[in-house]
């Protein structure tokens, strides 16, 4: 186990360095933050720009800037935002919980919906329930998420006035973003659960469980579900990682103060410190999730645990 963790740690360091290097380099190709800052601010001289560059540190060679960023990572001092001068750590500290919470709730919605629906579809393969579930899944897959989000806002906020259209303010504000994400995820997951369940149900031990006299609920939810957990955990883990990156669209639609919004604004302003920090946090999260997935394998499958 210790060897495994060390390997994973080294891997995480490598991943963070590789990603931040690419992102930091690429963002610097897209424009000069000093120029961006002055936009609409009247006349500026070359000297003004140089002064701003010196203040931001962007006059240094790229490699120096990057090493400075790495040093900041190690000392946990991520610097200040180019726009507004707020501490980057503070910005992340505010945005991260908002994103994580939304992602967790969406994921939970999808797991709670897709497992029973997937099992129902598998056990009624080819029959009515299966057809209906599969059609809904296809419809869900075909919706662009921003379209669904806009429709929900129109219906529940504008027409019915039940839910706040945007922002993060109390439990009610979570409902629509979470449902939008949850439904889109469920559409994929239900198919995955169905396929993986169909395969597991072919196993001899399912027949043995039935031959013991167990009820169908026990056979499905105790004996079968844990055996199809491995592919599901793998996929859910990947999906959660993807969710954190992809949540930006939903955050924009619902004006959610999360990492996505933060990153989006940072790209526009060429706000290097914020952008680098967001990307680093996201990649660490994804590496962390993969680690959790690996640990979860061992928990559900003794064949992996006892190796």
């Amino acid at each position: 186990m210790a060897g495994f963790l060390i390997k994973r740690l080294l891997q995480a360091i490598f991943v963070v360095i590789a990603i931040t290097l690419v992102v930091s380099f690429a963002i610097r190709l897209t424009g000069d933050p000093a120029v961006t800052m002055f936009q609409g601010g009247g006349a500026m001289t070359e000297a003004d720009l140089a002064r701003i560059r010196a203040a931001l540190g962007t006059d240094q060679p790229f490699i120096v800037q990057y090493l400075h960023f790495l040093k900041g990572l190690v000392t946990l001092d991520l610097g200040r935002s180019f726009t507004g001068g707020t501490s980057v750590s503070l910005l992340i500290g505010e945005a991260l919980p908002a994103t994580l919470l939304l992602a967790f709730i969406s994921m939970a919605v999808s797991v709670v919906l897709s497992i029973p629906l997937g099992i129902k579809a598998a056990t009624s393969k080819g029959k009515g329930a299966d057809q209906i579930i599969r059609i809904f899944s296809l419809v869900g897959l075909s919706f662009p998420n921003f379209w669904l989000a806009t429709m929900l806002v129109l219906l529940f906020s504008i027409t019915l006035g039940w839910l706040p259209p945007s922002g993060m303010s109390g439990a009610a504000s979570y409902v629509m973003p979470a449902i939008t994400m949850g439904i889109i995820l469920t559409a994929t997951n239900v198919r995955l659960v169905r396929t993986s369940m169909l395969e597991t149900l072919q196993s001899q031990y399912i027949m043995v469980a039935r031959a013991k006299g167990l009820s169908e609920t026990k056979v499905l939810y105790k004996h079968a579900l844990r055996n199809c957990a491995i592919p599901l955990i793998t996929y859910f883990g990947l999906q959660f990682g993807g969710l954190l990156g992809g949540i930006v669209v939903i955050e924009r639609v619902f004006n959610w103060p999360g990492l996505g919004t933060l990153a989006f604004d940072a790209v526009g302003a060429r706000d290097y410190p914020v952008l680098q920090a967001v990307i680093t946090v996201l990649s660490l999260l994804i590496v962390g999730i993969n680690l959790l997935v690996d640990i979860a394998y061992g928990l559900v499958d003794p064949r992996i645990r006892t190796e």
Partner: protein
Amino acid sequence: MNISAGTNAPLLSIKDLSVRFGPDRVVEDLSFSVKAGRTLAVVGESGSGKSVTSLSVMRLADMMGAHFETGSILFNDTDLLKASQKQMRLIRGKEIAMIFQEPMTSLNPVFTIGDQICEVLLLHENISKAAATAEARHLLDMVRLPDSEQLLKRYPHQLSGGMRQRVMIAMALACRPKLLIADEPTTALDVTIQAQILNIMRDLQRDFGMGMIFITHDMGVVAEMADDVVVMWKGRKVEEGPVREIFANPQHPYTRALLSAVPRLGSLTGEDFPKRMPLTVLDGDTQTIVGEERVQDTARYDLPPVVSVKDLFVRFDIRKNILGKATHRCSAVSKVSFDIHPGETLALVGESGSGKSTIGRTIQQLQTSLSGEISFNGKSYLNMSAAERFRMRQEVQYIFQDPFASLDPRKKVGFSVAEPINTHQLIDGSKAVRRRVHELLERVGLTSAHADRYPHEFSGGQRQRVCIARALASNPKLIIADEALSALDVSIQAQIINLFMDLQAERGLAYLFISHDMAVVEKMSHRVAVLYLGQIMEMGSRRQVFETPKHDYTRRLLSAVPVADPTAERNTDLIEGDIPNPVHRVGDEPAILSHDEPNPGHFVATASARKSAPIFGKHDA
């Protein structure tokens, strides 16, 4: 608990049962009954409806989409066909229990043995978790598993196939069912393990006074286990009677054909050579004898060997430490030497983990060896150029156990058969290739029209014929047949054995025949090598090994084979213990045995002087 066998009222009686799946009727008008304390064997080949019958009794066939068109299944005066699934759940596992064929997949891999046995006890008996655990332990002792307390906490993958099947039996017997249905419970096991499981089942059935339905395709097992026999063919019962009657005086032509096809150990006693025997074939209801009897005196010992294996070692790294250095290895093959001459069949027999398939794969260059020399036509692999090695692949062909898995399901069989011809550019022109493919298919008993079909359109026996045709396509000198007959029904098996022998007589083919089935080996082979844990225990002519076995392990193997004769005396005392694991720590290699030669050509392993640890005996742990 000892109830005297044979009270008059039947425990279970099936009347006029017909089962339909979609448009296909797989069981028709089936009737039979089982009494308490008796064992009824239901015998038949694949597709005879025997498994569907047993699943129908459990009403598990419902989940597979079965429709019960007619009939009744009376158990304790209840018609199981009229019972609801809810009522059935009270009967399943409690009154009627079932053991399945595949011990490797019958236990749920994510729960401990203890949990799985306790589950059934807690479900049907009104007892506490602690009492259930105690009972589970008792059950494991009953099926003669050592260290039952430890075993309760272990997971299925940590157990061998034989141990898992005992756990299955323990689980099935947990609630002391009145009827036990065993569906091919030993088919997937090695013979010595099979003998042990059969002994346990026989003893427990007697102790509990259970009725038992024993489903099998193996007439040897029937002879050993059954009181009564029902023979099924194409969904119908064709014959029924006490076991001795069925064997001594079979009435129905199908039963006679089935019995005549069963390879019997000792059938060639006194013969120097294997014999090609005529077959009893059933055409409709009339049986005809086809083929000739011929002594298979094809081995050309005067010619140099086709293949010569000298001091072959093969090792697999099983576990590695953090630096990638092996800490555990499997000694798959250790110091194995043999020659195969043109026209000769050398059989490699042994149980799982004996290394027999590894030897075959190494000869075919599908596996690299650690050391040792393999020469083909007198030339060592090591000295061969790449072109020579390629040519050698043409002259050595492999036939696998599972004919379905070894044919590409998306290609017509004609393509598969033509592939070796095209790969080795043996014939030019697609017309000529096609002609050759048709010729080959006809030679193995198929028609040229079969070339345009896909593998799923064939039966198991036909698919194996296709594989043989493909092997023949490159004009090989040696065919390695790795359990090539094991997945086939006996009647098909007998036909394929004859095909193998005919091809050998015609073309002077040499065979390396890898098998666990002693009776088939006796029918086919000129010489036999018995393998155990990667080493040759005994090697000699078929007659030497089968008639005067010198090594304990050979005798063990021979005595474990079920004899298809209910009047024969059983002697299974020799058989004890599980097959040990060939995996060992690096530095803790098993001792290499040396060989004596008591008679010319007859080699027997002697205990090694280097390490005196006995390698036979009780290894259950």
